[in-house]
Every structure is written in structure tokens, then in C-alpha cells.
């Protein structure tokens, strides 16, 4: 047992202090108001203070911290994207993640288990090679592997997928990891709080004042806040915030569902994704299989669950793992994914001076938490976005310069 746990055994009073202070009502004004107390918003607050010394900052969370997509995703972290921009960006995120438990002094259970994207068709194999080549080029460890290597890493997997969709190969991504999603939010919250940022839960933004093209303040259910800089980091709620400043974006909300089984003795050490079968699965440190699938097919601003999601997912899980017939699904849930036309985020400045956007996180937001926090903090501090996120700018749509991430997703035939 680590010594640091001894103090809990020896001290009468529980020796751990609050993660973050409980403030009642916000001050009259802040240098920066961050809307959204998820991983992204809290990380931005943390890096604003840590990297730029900007501490007169408040984070407004309408529910509880980490209660949105931060607490609803399947905790996969990877950087095996298709475009160089994407790979560079997520690779930077992975690098921060690797040292984050120590930096935040909170065990995020950041666990590098390797990530296999299974290919069941020739065209999927093409895409895998495309991603592998770009990854290699940028210096990220990804390669196309054959069925034998998959079998070695995951002997229980039925490579024929019950004869339905035989696995031809996979994109293996060594840095692929999982982490405790709640911990990421809590760790950044504690870090930001200790550096002076204020976190307000149950605090809802009701409006944003824009005077001649500049942000001037934020209306909340806990009073009015004057500020010149506002960051919107609200993922599935983005359209509701951008509407407050009459900002048009391509973002459409689709629910993304997931489910989890009863705990079992761990047997699945890697992270598996199958595009054709619409399955991604890993086994948590509690022993539960955490499973997700593709987006719901139409726009809904809800986190309701559907039966056909879990029916489809489990049917495909059985194709991959026929022996799971009597393993039980305990719970299903959903998040609201803010989708963009090119499957890449929208980050940086907007036509409204002082209004910064961190959105379009669709199904890939958790893995970007640290780097998005860092780069958005940089953007706010310098009122200019770093090159790393240049290709994610909002104006790319007007410029017809969409990122290529969609390329992979829509390769047919």
C-alpha cells in the first residue's frame, strides 16, 4: 500500500480538503467567463491561470462539474486520426495526458492499453493504411496489422465475427488509452480552484451581451457578470449559447449512446473499435465492459436511451465475442454530441470580439480535453489562436476549407 494512504488510516478527521471551494454568488466582473464546467472549460481555466497567470476567471456550470459529455463518454484517448492537423493536435493531447495524473496529483488511471481499429472490408483496410501512413509521417505510432497480431493481443476475439464480417486486419495504435473521465474534470477543477479560478455549479447562462461587436457581459441565474472575454465550452449545448450572440455555425446535435456490463474479472486488455460493426469496447478497472456505438441518426437535444441502440450494439458484440451471451448489461446512457460537417472541432476566435468558441467535439471531445484547454487558454490570453488549431477555425466553412477528417469516414465502395 502506498504511504500516502496511511494518513487516512492514522488521522481521526478525514484529512482530504475540498476539491474546490463552494462559492455562493459570482462577483460583478471577471476578466474571463468560461461557460461550461466540463473537462474542456475547467482545463481552459486551469491553463489560463497556470500558463498565462490569468486568474480572475469564473467557470459557470449549469449542472454539476463533469456532468455533461465529460462524464458520459467511453474514456478512450487516441491520436490516430487521418489529417496531419488532426494527428498533431491529438498527439499533443496524448502527451499531456501521459503526465497529467502527476501534474494534477490525482490518479486518472491513465492506462495505455493499445487501440485496434478493426477492418472487415477492403475499403476499410484502405482507410486504415491511409491513417497509418499519415500517423507515421507525423511520428505517431500506428501501423496496419494482420489478424494474427490482433489474435495475439485479444485471443478471445472471434476473427470471423461469427462469419458475418471476417476481420481482414486492423489499424494498431500503441498509444491508445483509457482514463477516468470524472477524474479529469475533478482534477482540472481542483487545479484551477487552487490557482484562483472560481467554479460555480448550478449556474446557468441566460444571455450574453454584445455591444457593437464586442462581448460586454453575461446574464446568469445568479446575477449579471461584466466581462470582455467569454469562452463557450459547452459541447452539446453550443447551439443554445451561439444563438445568444447570433452566431451561425454548422453544429448539429445528435445523441451518442453507450452502455456498461456487470463487473467481470478483466479479460479484455486492449481497446477495440469496429467501424463496420459500429462497436467500440474496453474493459474498465472495475471489470465492466464499456461499450459505445455510432451516433443516433437524427437531431435530438436529449440524453434519452433507445432500445434499438443497445440491441444493435449487443448483436454486434456477440459477433465479436460469442461467449458473452449471458453477460449482463447493467446500464445504458447517452450524451449530446455536437457534430460538424467535417468531423473536426471548431476552435478559436469568432466574428464577435471577445467571444471564443470551443465546440464541434462530436464523439472525440474527451481525448482532446488537455490540449483544447491549453490552446483555448492561449487563444484567450493572446486574443489569437495558435497554429495548432488554425485548421479548426470557424471561418473554414465560409472558405470551403473543411478539414479532411471526413475523408476517411465517407470512403465508400
Amino acid at each position, binding site marked *: 500500500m502506498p504511504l500516502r494512504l496511511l494518513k487516512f488510516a492514522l488521522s481521526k478527521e478525514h484529512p482530504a480538503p475540498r476539491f474546490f471551494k463552494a462559492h455562493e454568488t459570482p462577483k460583478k466582473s471577471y476578466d474571463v467567463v468560461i461557460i461550461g464546467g466540463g473537462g474542456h472549460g475547467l482545463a481552459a481555466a486551469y491553463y489560463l491561470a497556470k500558463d498565462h497567470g490569468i486568474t480572475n476567471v469564473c467557470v459557470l456550470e449549469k449542472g454539476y462539474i463533469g456532468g455533461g459529455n465529460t462524464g458520459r463518454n467511453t474514456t478512450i484517448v487516441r491520436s490516430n486520426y487521418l489529417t496531419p492537423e488532426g494527428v498533431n493536435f491529438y498527439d499533443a493531447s496524448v502527451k499531456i495526458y501521459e503526465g497529467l495524473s502527476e501534474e494534477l496529483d490525482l490518479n486518472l488511471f491513465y492506462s495505455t492499453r493499445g487501440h485496434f481499429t478493426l477492418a472487415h472490408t477492403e475499403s476499410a483496410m484502405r482507410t486504415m493504411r491511409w491513417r497509418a501512413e499519415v500517423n507515421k509521417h507525423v511520428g505517431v505510432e500506428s501501423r496496419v496489422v494482420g489478424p494474427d497480431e490482433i489474435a495475439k493481443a485479444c485471443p478471445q476475439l472471434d476473427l470471423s465475427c461469427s462469419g458475418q464480417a471476417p476481420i481482414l486486419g486492423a489499424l494498431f495504435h500503441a498509444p491508445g488509452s483509457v482514463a477516468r473521465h470524472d477524474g479529469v474534470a475533478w482534477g482540472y477543477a481542483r487545479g484551477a480552484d487552487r490557482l484562483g479560478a472560481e467554479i460555480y455549479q448550478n449556474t446557468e447562462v441566460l444571455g450574453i451581451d454584445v455591444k457593437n461587436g464586442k462581448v460586454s457581459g453575461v446574464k446568469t441565474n445568479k446575477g449579471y457578470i461584466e466581462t470582455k472575454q467569454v469562452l463557450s465550452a459547452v459541447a452539446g449545448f*453550443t*447551439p*443554445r449559447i*451561439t*444563438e445568444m450572440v447570433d452566431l*451561425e*455555425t*454548422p*453544429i*448539429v*446535435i445528435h445523441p451518442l449512446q453507450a452502455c456498461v456490463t456487470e463487473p467481470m474479472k478483466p479479460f479484455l486488455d486492449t481497446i477495440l473499435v469496429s467501424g463496420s460493426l459500429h462497436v467500440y469496447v474496453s474493459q474498465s478497472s472495475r471489470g465492466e465492459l464499456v461499450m459505445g456505438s455510432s451516433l443516433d*441518426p*437524427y*437531431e*435530438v*437535444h*436529449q440524453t*434519452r436511451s*433507445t*432500445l*434499438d441502440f443497445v440491441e444493435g450494439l449487443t448483436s454486434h458484440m456477440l459477433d465479436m465475442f460469442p461467449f458473452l451471451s449471458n453477460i449482463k448489461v447493467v446500464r445504458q446512457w447517452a450524451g449530446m454530441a*455536437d457534430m460538424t*460537417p467535417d468531423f473536426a472541432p471548431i476552435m478559436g476566435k469568432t466574428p464577435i470580439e471577445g467571444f471564443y468558441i470551443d465546440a464541434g467535439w462530436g464523439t472525440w471531445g474527451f481525448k482532446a480535453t488537455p490540449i483544447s484547454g491549453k490552446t483555448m487558454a492561449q487563444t484567450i490570453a493572446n486574443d489569437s489562436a495558435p497554429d495548432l488549431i488554425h485548421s479548426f477555425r470557424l471561418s473554414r*466553412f*465560409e*472558405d*470551403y476549407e473543411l478539414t479532411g477528417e471526413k475523408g476517411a469516414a465517407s470512403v465508400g465502395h
Partner: protein
Amino acid sequence: MKLLTCPMNGTRPLSEFIFGGEYRQAPDQDTCSDAEWAAFVHNRSGAPGDKKEWWYHSPSGTWFIAERNTLTDVVSRTYLAGQNNTTQEEGK
């Protein structure tokens, strides 16, 4: 699974339908600016509320319009494009 009412074929589970996106009027492509067109092509009114949407009933090949609240996911009426005079409560 949610039910949806096709004006031609009646109330069916959602699995029989394909979502066709929001029903939108394109700006006049001869008079609009490049920026306006780019906005039409890429931007969406993503905020929750009552939307007119295209839906397609696959088994019969029927396109129709559904008026749906994207927050409550409640469909108030469905009708064939160009025939929105016929109000129709979604059958339950």
C-alpha cells in the same frame, strides 16, 4: 422505439424511416453572395426548437415533412411536401 406517422402509410417505428435533414429554403443562387451560399451549405440552425424536417419512409419510398420539436422529440404534424394544409397529429 419511437413512432412516426407517415402521411401515406400511417404510424410506424422509427426504424422504417430515414432522416433527411432540416427542410430549408436555399437562397437564390443567382443573386446571393458567396458568403450567403457558403452559410446555406454549411451552417444549420442547431438550437433546439420546432423544426420542419425531411423524413423518408423506406418501405414505400415516401418523402414527407415532419414538424418536430428537437428538444422534446415530439412530432406535431407530418404531411407531404406542398400539402401542409392537412394537419395530422402523430398517432400513438
